[in-house]
């Protein structure tokens, strides 16, 4: 049997059993409780086929089945084995399959501890897998290529990084997890039971939030390390598409806290659970339908699945919001009382600001679609996101800083202020110090103070709770992480400094107290290991930096990978920009090589700039082609443009007639190269004396990113805090029902155990 057919059969089987499982759960939802066990059985089989198709796709990559379009498109025979994982999820279909695989696996864990939510919860949960399977069957990753190829195209060199091996799986794990709170919310709404679902959904919301947050920063770290533009976050639609559900999950985490403690916000939590999941689906639609093709970095191609994606989105909008709207009047929770400044109101404001952030991102990312309704589609500048998030960031820092003091409910206001005193003093000292050393941009000093205050306050409460009740310390640890993240974001972006250096071999340049000397290159431009070598000297310490610079046939362009010297106070980020090498012919007297746009101040007494080429002239009759270089010439009493011509005949013969400069000096075009544009010129005449100047010239950008380490450290703490929270909320779940007692489920007529809240 051919591999394409086999793959499609596996997908088809997964779809079939998915439908069977949904149908069984649907019956079980009615009165036929006995079919519940069939729902589970079919779900297990469906999972095996779903995960199996992902494994099979990987197998096809390993066994180099280039007759499969998807395999040929994202791998080649010379690709190292470990990057084949990245190949599997490099394209659309593979990443849909990855999403499906995670969704199937998570379902197994979810299913066992749902209690009486099982049949309805699983019904709604499986709808997501159903849609994914429809898309995959329609656009199968196992499709055969129209014309089989001997070798694949290869993987985009930017994706050949171990972060791209692990970042997408983590991201899609988060996307898959966000369907669980949605499914449980739907189950709760259909059961008219508006309280206990929070207990069942809480660990999953924490899990989804933690995983998405980690995945987002992993992607940022990849961008920082590989792309070389110096940042980790660019407010690109693909990045925003992952940020929005994260913010939804984050708001929901805080909403659940209130509902668990006080019973308030039941409607808000339903809304947030539905919205967080819809943001996953909406993000998928934005980034995979091609609607933003003119506005984004990432290549979006319309696969012909737009109809499905729109249906996917509309179905869940109608089901989700429709159900909530229908039940809205019945859902009631207790109304607050008590002082304005209390823990719940603080958390409520936090939910508000997180939601505002999500809404601003949603609005900005959707702006091309919104403006299209009124005329010319317009995108927003990145400054929009920065502008709107500055006040939100300040408010969040303030609320995070306040939260520990509101947490001590028993303490009197006087005690609270006393507790806040030391962190406040310490934060003020730090803020003044940072101000004194030059970090003083606009309103940011206030932001610095608030983040320091949030950091110290949460460190204090974390150590108190970690020593008394470790399982409750997750939130505080996450807040420490968030404070660090905010500080890291501000310092590394607002106070980032850049400097450009142009160096020839042996030349030294200064940037931020560092002396950089260019030593030359290593290896061949066509090899990925080719690096520009610099020695970096700082306070007597000498190190070497090797930013990569190489030609990629895949991208048809030069690839640049920065060299990063990591430090605690700041990173030194060395990004290659341009490298021009003269042709070998320069040893001949009078020869000079010019890079594109290059100006030489003293080319045998002339100032000469190479401005580009004229349009090549073809002369098919004579079998020759001519091109002229545009030179701006000044010196020795001339100023103007010279156009020396190079004619290449079919026979390979080259003709370079000299062009008059002045005083009997001439210039001729000996060699011309298109990419990167460069020319070799031969000067002749009385002024020409040989020079031994080196022509190997590099341009680099050196930048200093203060405290960027806090971004990675903060993420680490937020993730650990998230894991602690997941553990805490999992302990509140009903006990595991596995191994399933099949006989009991089939014969039992009594209702399953009721979930309880504490």
């Amino acid at each position: 049997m051919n591999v394409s057919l086999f793959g499609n059969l596996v997908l088809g089987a997964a779809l079939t059993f998915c439908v069977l499982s949904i149908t069984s759960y649907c019956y079980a939802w009615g009165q036929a409780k006995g079919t519940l066990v069939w729902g589970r059985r079919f779900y297990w089989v469906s999972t095996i086929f779903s995960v199996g198709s992902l494994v099979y796709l990987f197998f096809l990559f390993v066994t180099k089945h280039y007759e499969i379009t998807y395999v040929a498109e994202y791998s080649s025979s010379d690709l190292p084995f470990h990057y084949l994982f990245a190949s599997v999820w490099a394209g659309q279909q593979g990443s849909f399959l990855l999403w499906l695989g995670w969704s199937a696996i998570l379902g197994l864990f979810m299913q066992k501890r749902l209690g009486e939510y099982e049949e309805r919860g699983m019904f709604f949960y499986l709808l997501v897998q159903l849609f994914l399977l429809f898309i995959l069957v329609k656009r199968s990753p196992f499709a055969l290529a129209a014309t089989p190829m001997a070798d694949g195209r290869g993987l985009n060199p930017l994706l050949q990084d171990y972060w791209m091996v692990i970042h997408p799986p983590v991201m899609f794990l988060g996307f898959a997890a966000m369907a669980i709170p949605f499914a449980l919310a739907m189950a709760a709404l259909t059961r008219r039971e508006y309280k206990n679902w929070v207990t069942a959904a809480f660990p999953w919301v924490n899990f989804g939030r933690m995983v998405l947050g980690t995945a987002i920063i992993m992607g940022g770290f990849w961008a920082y390390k590989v792309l070389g533009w110096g940042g980790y976050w660019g407010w690109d639609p693909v990045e925003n598409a992952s940020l929005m559900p994260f913010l939804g999950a984050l708001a929901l985490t805080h909403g659940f806290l209130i509902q668990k403690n006080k019973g308030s916000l039941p409607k808000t939590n339903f809304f947030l659970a539905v919205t967080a999941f819809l943001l996953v689906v909406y993000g998928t639609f934005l980034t995979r339908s091609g609607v933003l093709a003119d506005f984004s970095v990432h290549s979006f191609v319309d696969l012909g699945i737009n109809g499905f994606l729109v249906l996917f989105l509309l179905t869940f909008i109608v089901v989700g919001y429709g159900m909530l709207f229908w039940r809205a009047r019945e859902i009631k929770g207790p109304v607050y009382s008590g002082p304005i400044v209390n823990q719940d109101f603080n958390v409520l404001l936090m939910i508000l600001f997180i939601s505002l952030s999500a809404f601003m991102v949603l609005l900005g990312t959707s702006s091309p679609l919104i403006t299209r309704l009124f005329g010319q589609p317009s995108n927003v500048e990145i400054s929009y996101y920065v502008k709107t998030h500055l006040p939100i960031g300040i408010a969040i820092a303030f609320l995070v800083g306040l939260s520990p003091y509101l947490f001590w409910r028993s303490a009197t206001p006087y005690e609270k202020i006393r507790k806040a005193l030391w962190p406040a003093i310490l934060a003020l000292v730090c803020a003044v110090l940072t101000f004194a050393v030059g970090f003083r941009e606009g309103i940011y000093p206030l932001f610095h103070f608030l983040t320091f205050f949030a950091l110290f306050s949460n460190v204090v409460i974390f150590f108190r709770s970690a020593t008394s009740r470790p399982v409750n310390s997750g939130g505080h640890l996450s807040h420490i992480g968030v404070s660090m993240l905010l500080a890291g974001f501000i310092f590394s972006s607002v106070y980032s400094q850049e400097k450009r250096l142009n160096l020839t071999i042996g030349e030294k340049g200064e940037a931020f107290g560092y002396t950089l000397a260019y030593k030359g290159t290593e290896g061949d431009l066509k090899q990925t290991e080719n690096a520009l070598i610099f020695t970096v000297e700082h306070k007597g310490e000498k190190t070497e930096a090797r930013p990569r610079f190489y030609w990629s046939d895949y991208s048809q362009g030069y690839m640049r990978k920065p060299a990063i010297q990591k430090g605690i106070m700041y990173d030194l980020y060395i990004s290659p920009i341009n490298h021009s090498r003269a042709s070998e012919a320069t040893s001949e007297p009078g020869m000079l090589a010019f890079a594109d746009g290059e100006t030489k101040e003293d080319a045998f007494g002339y100032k000469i700039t190479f401005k580009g080429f004229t349009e090549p002239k073809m002369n098919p009759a004579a079998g020759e082609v001519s091109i002229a270089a545009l030179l701006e010439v000044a010196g020795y009493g001339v100023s103007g443009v010279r156009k020396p011509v190079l004619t290449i005949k079919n026979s390979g013969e080259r003709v370079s007639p000299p062009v008059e400069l002045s005083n009997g000096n001439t210039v001729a075009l000996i060699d011309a190269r298109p990419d990167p544009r460069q020319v070799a010129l031969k000067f002749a005449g009385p002024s020409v004396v040989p020079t031994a100047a080196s022509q190997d010239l590099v341009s680099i950008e050196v930048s200093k990113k203060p405290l960027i380490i806090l971004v990675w450290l903060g993420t680490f703490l937020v993730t650990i805090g998230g894991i602690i929270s997941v553990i805490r909320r999992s302990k509140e779940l009903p006990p595991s029902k596995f191994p399933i007692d099949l006989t009991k489920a089939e014969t039992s007529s009594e209702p399953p155990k009721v979930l309880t809240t504490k």
Partner: protein
Amino acid sequence: MKARYIIALVIIIGFAVYGAVSLKTSLTPYVSFAEAKSSPQTVQVMGELEKSATRYDTTAGLLYFTLKDKHGDLLEVSYKGIRPGNFDQATQIVAIGDYKEKVFEADQLLVKCPSKYQGEEVQSYKAEK
């Protein structure tokens, strides 16, 4: 009780207004070359690359190139930064920026290239500050 609602409402309304104003001022509409030349705000222009007119000023780190739109109008664009790797293969280039003294200063470029398998690929490049 009431005070809470008022505080929350004030924050929401305040942000709605602030957000709307920020959005309106940061929108970068797609415009024609003629409009780009007269527009004071940041805009996006799209055109084909006039390959012969590209040059790179190494000392200033500026890339100069000319775009030609579907009416045949020309616009010279400057871009501070790396010459995008796939620049010469570009079928279309989107430049985002504003027009200053006879040249369109791009803050960001989107370079569309033909791709063997997927029709077209888009890559984005941001200018240095």
